[in-house]
């Protein structure tokens, strides 16, 4: 995966988040404060505007730039969390103009650990981790078992989609939805949903290029 592909993925994610802005906000209205889509779209709009300045940068610098832009524009909890995720992934890809399957797995691992560290959360608390962690596990199993990145990522997207479904069955213990206790049951987590969209979009771009 080279810088051109990374830039195409980021651009596509920005489009997807903008397109899903209202749906994500509606999900957040159910169990949060109804701004997840609005905030994330504001952040990715800023990322989109910065994309031309990333053109000659390495993948580490691009991901770090995305993270910094998100941290400084999104606010709320998702800004520091997604921002940290992209910055940590950027650290792994520092100086690289191209990344391998193993780099991709390592970057995703670093991103997830960044979210866990910043959010002091683990899997099963009705957060974005419930999409990201199963996706990571499926991708790693696939790559270790000799699958190519597209096939492994397809497994990861399936696992993330199951993870989003799973968030409907559990009570939130982190974030604003935790105040609702059992009233958060039956609702899918907006953060897990936006994480799924990012993975889906990554897969779509890789398939089409």
């Amino acid at each position, binding site marked *: 995966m080279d810088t051109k592909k990374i830039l195409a993925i980021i651009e596509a994610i920005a489009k997807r988040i903008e397109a899903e802005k209202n749906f994500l906000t509606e999900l957040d209205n159910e169990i949060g404060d109804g701004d997840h889509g609005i905030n994330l779209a504001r952040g990715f709009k800023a990322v989109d505007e910065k994309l031309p300045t990333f053109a000659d940068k390495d993948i580490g610098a691009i991901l770090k730039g995305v993270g910094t832009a998100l941290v400084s524009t999104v*606010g709320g909890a998702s800004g520091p969390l997604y921002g940290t995720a992209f910055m940590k992934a950027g650290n792994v890809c520092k100086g690289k103009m191209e990344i391998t399957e193993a780099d991709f797995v390592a970057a995703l691992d670093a991103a997830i650990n960044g979210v866990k560290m910043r959010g002091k959360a683990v899997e099963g608390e009705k957060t974005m981790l419930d999409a990201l962690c199963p996706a990571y596990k499926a991708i790693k199993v696939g790559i270790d078992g000799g699958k190519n990145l597209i096939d492994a990522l397809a497994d990861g997207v399936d696992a993330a989609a199951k993870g989003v479904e799973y968030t409907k069955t559990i009570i939130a213990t982190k974030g604003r939805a935790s105040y609702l206790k059992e009233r958060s049951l039956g609702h899918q987590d907006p953060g897990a949903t936006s994480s799924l969209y990012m993975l889906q979009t990554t897969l779509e771009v890789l398939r089409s290029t």
Partner: protein
Amino acid sequence: MKKLINAVDAVEEQMILGLVKSAPDKLRKLECGNVVVRAKKKSDDKVALVSGGGSGHEPAHGGFVGEGMLDCAVAGAVFTSPTPDKIFEGIKAVATEQGVLCIVKNYTGDVLNFEMAIDMAGDEDIKVDHVVVNDDVAVQDSLYTTGRRGVAGTILVHKIAGAKAETGATLEEIKAVAEKVIANVRTMGMAISPCTVPAAGKPGFELADDEIEIGIGIHGEPGTHRDKIASADEIAKTLLDKILADIDYKGREVVVMVNGMGATPLMELYIINNFVQDYLKTAGVKVYDTMVGNYMTSIEMAGFSLTLLRLDDELKELYDAPADTPALKR
């Protein structure tokens, strides 16, 4: 959506500009964003206080910037925590040699963004520490939740820590007194009608004509449960009982805050206060002072919160110390 605004994306900045223009000799807005600081920077022998959070809680927090309270308030988008870079700019603008104390409400977004900003300030050798306010008794405090939310009691932390800072106390001493307020302040709120975030365009939840939401936070998020509408006295009793059951107020002196959520007429807040005062008397709680008004709002939500702060001699003295801010003067 019907609101007195000009453009959805101009709400926060125009609000902050308007606040600053209401007290131009006392407040200043930083160029970098919606950050309000005192027009005259505090001297280097005193600790500076920084707070902030999403917009939509006016007068919190910008209205509490001034002598005897905050040095800086950072405003995010409506109901969204400000970002770390803006908080960092605020910290830098008011930092003194004695350091900076940040007062953060316990909401995941606020805590995460302030923590990142504090890391950034620490990297630049600014002495900075923080406290997290969690006064909302509607939420169970346990290891398995994010913990109690920080709501209207935060204003009393601003007041008392602010007074302590004016005495020239050290960062550690001010943090200790802020923690003491946090340990002794409890709040619970309710809504009879929801509010609409301008960018969302529709209410955060819907309530039937005969329904109320008990245990709301301050961001238009749903509360802990729904109830049928009852009399003002009955509702106030529900909230007060929960507060009185949480820590022992009997025989103690308290500050009472009857806080409007934004669209509650003072008429109704006074009706509630009428009950609260009598009920506290019966419960053996002595009211030292009462605040009735809009201190920590949720845009145009109708409803109220009740806050009780248990006092000791130190807190009483600091509560009585002078304050000169747009929204609170003593």
